[in-house]
């Protein structure tokens, strides 16, 4: 049997079930931004809703509230999720980064303590890795977690923690051996973000909202039981997390296929209104559709390979480079088509005449554009991803 790109009856059935549930349950109006107090709680309720339908962690094993779906089934679910423009996942980092890490490295006690609350949205998780002097060079991190009896005492300064402003917990990388350097002496510790000695301060982003935060630790105490894996094993556990992140699950292809589809609709409307469109933009729209399809096909190919027992290594960095540049390209094309309308800020809901509706659409594209600027930066800057590809896949020497 050669390559078979047809879905099986079981896959069709899953799609139908996901579609039916989502169509019945997705909020009719977009939720307010999860980077506001009110929006965050609305998104937390959405996580609980998803959980009630057992759609929150579809790839997780059934024992943790998941459906034990394989990667192709996950892709199908994601396609349905984006088809109806369902809300963004406020617990994205918990679901796709921390959860899988905990399942692999956590003790039974830690799993039963954290996973059910993560799955239901009772706890929202943030990644607590970067520091002011340790960004791309993460191994330069200096925040210490020094053992004192049954506790770690944490001191230092973390930054760029997405969703940390309102999140409940952080999963972080700390130096448990104060005398250690670089990759050695680090441990993976989870920290409640509302605990004495922890100060979270939001950092407004380009869109004006505090989507990330800096976190100050001043003699914050957390029990040793909050350490995932062995002391000193933090780096390898964190890199496993980074593997999930860069690998497949951070950005599913459906997200970009949906944006490409919206871009095509925008372009066709402009074209039908006889607007004069730069032929370069027209070509970009076509290229974007092709690239979104290419990313989807590539992901199906990788997923098939993994299901057949293959592994994914440093080549995962190719994905992140590709989708982040595609996302930027799609949004730039949309703004070019919108022209003078692109700068308008809407209030949501489209109330207030024709211009308000246009402003709402423009805002969605502009916010998407602003966020797409972050794509080549977060989860390992694209320059770092290119170094990884060159050195670990192509075999070129370290600079």
């Amino acid at each position: 049997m050669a390559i078979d790109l047809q879905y099986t009856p079981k896959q069709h059935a899953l799609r139908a079930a996901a579609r039916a549930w989502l169509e019945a349950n997705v909020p009719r109006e977009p939720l307010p931004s999860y980077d506001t107090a009110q929006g965050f709680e609305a998104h937390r309720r959405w996580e609980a809703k998803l959980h009630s339908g057992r759609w929150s962690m579809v790839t997780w094993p059934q024992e943790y509230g998941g459906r034990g779906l394989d990667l192709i089934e996950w892709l199908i679910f994601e396609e349905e999720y984006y088809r109806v423009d369902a809300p963004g996942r406020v617990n994205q980092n918990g679901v796709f980064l921390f959860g899988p890490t905990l399942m692999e490295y956590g003790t039974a006690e830690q799993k039963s303590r954290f996973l059910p609350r993560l799955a239901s949205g009772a706890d929202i998780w943030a990644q607590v890795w970067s520091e002011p002097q340790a960004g791309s060079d993460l191994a330069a991190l200096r925040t210490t977690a020094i053992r004192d009896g049954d506790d770690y005492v944490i001191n230092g300064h973390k930054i760029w923690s997405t969703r940390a402003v309102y999140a409940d917990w952080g999963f972080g990388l700390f130096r448990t051996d104060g005398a250690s350097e670089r990759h050695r002496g680090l441990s993976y510790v989870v920290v409640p973000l509302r605990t004495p000695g922890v100060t979270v301060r939001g950092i407004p982003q380009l869109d004006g909202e505090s989507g990330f935060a800096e976190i100050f630790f001043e003699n914050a105490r957390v029990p040793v039981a909050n350490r995932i894996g062995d002391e000193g094993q933090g780096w390898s556990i964190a890199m496993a997390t980074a593997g999930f992140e860069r690998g497949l699950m951070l950005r599913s292809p459906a997200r970009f296929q949906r944006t490409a589809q919206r871009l095509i609709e925008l372009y066709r409307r402009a074209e039908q209104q006889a607007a004069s469109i730069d032929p370069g933009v027209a070509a970009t729209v076509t290229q974007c559709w092709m690239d979104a399809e290419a990313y989807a096909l590539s992901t199906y190919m990788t997923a098939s390979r993994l299901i057949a027992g293959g592994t994914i290594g440093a080549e995962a960095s190719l994905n992140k480079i590709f989708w982040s540049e595609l996302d930027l390209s799609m949004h730039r094309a949309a703004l070019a088509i919108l022209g003078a309308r692109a700068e308008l800020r809407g209030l949501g809901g489209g109330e207030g005449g024709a211009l308000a509706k246009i402003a709402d659409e423009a805002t969605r594209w502009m916010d998407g554009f602003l966020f797409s600027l972050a794509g080549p930066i977060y989860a390992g800057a694209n320059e770092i991803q290119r170094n990884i590809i060159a050195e670990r896949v192509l075999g070129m020497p370290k600079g």
Partner: protein
Amino acid sequence: MDFTFDEEHRLAAQSLRELLNDHCQGNDLRRAADARDLSSFEAACATRRARLAELGLTGALVPAEQGGLGLSVVDFVLLAEEAGCAALPEPLVDVEGVAHPLFSALVLAAPSERAESGLQETLAGSALVLSAAPGTTALANAAFAQYLLLGRSDDELALYLASDISLTHRDSVDPLRRLSEIALIDAKPIAKVTGAAAASAWQAARARSAVLNAAQLLGLGSRMLEIAVAYSLERKQFGKAIGSNQAVKHSLTDVMVKLEFARPVVYAAAATLAPVRVAHAAVAAADAADRAARAAIQVHGAMGYSWEVNLQFYAKRAWALAGLNGGRSAQFSAVHQSLLRGELGAQWT
């Protein structure tokens, strides 16, 4: 849904790769390129031709009832990629991927003893068949063929003896593509199909050609990337390998990004032969190979612009193939037209 190749696909590709490693290296290509005339060109290629014939790929895409192997395009796509990887001068892809299945279609649509015996001759390897879709500018390797499948328009698919056709040699920028201009004046075909049957046969031939050329472009691009990486490790400036510079690393990584996101498109196009996928595959592979060629030449510095570096054979093949089947421009336009007609959404909607 299973987007993986079978073990037998990989093994077949591997045996072709091993053969080409032995008989189609840069220096083998150079010997052929330096040939002054047709007979010395053939002499330079003789061993490889003989080995290829022993590989048992003849009639790969011809149905088993007609004496072929009964494979489909997706079974052949990795082989085409290997042919590209080696810049194979022999028309393995043009014959087995395109002309032979077209020959088979002609025999099925208009059975005749003469056409039937011609097909058996070419399947036995005692004669060579090539095809040129209506509108073809010049056909590579026509000078080596005994049978030609041609048409004045898409409504006509006709089988000719090559000796009845006026062929004029034309030089290609790729010294390994021996082109012929074809004149169809007064030539009498030995078998012919007309109308819808001809049109659908040509349409299928064009799709196979576009997909399999895209696969060759993937192979060519991968090979150029490999050559560029090797050179970047060997060439030292300022006391270190030039490949340790980020500017060089990132340029070659971008080539890999292009190649790796063209690859699944080409494979999906081979599996489905859906027109938009085929056009997308042609564009993506042409772009990736072009990026590879330019980056590889740049990494080679002045050497990259010199005749003596074998890299040129791969680059020139890539540029030649990228222009076929309407070229990158027509293929891109085909995708764009589908978009304008509202046919393109996400595949799952």
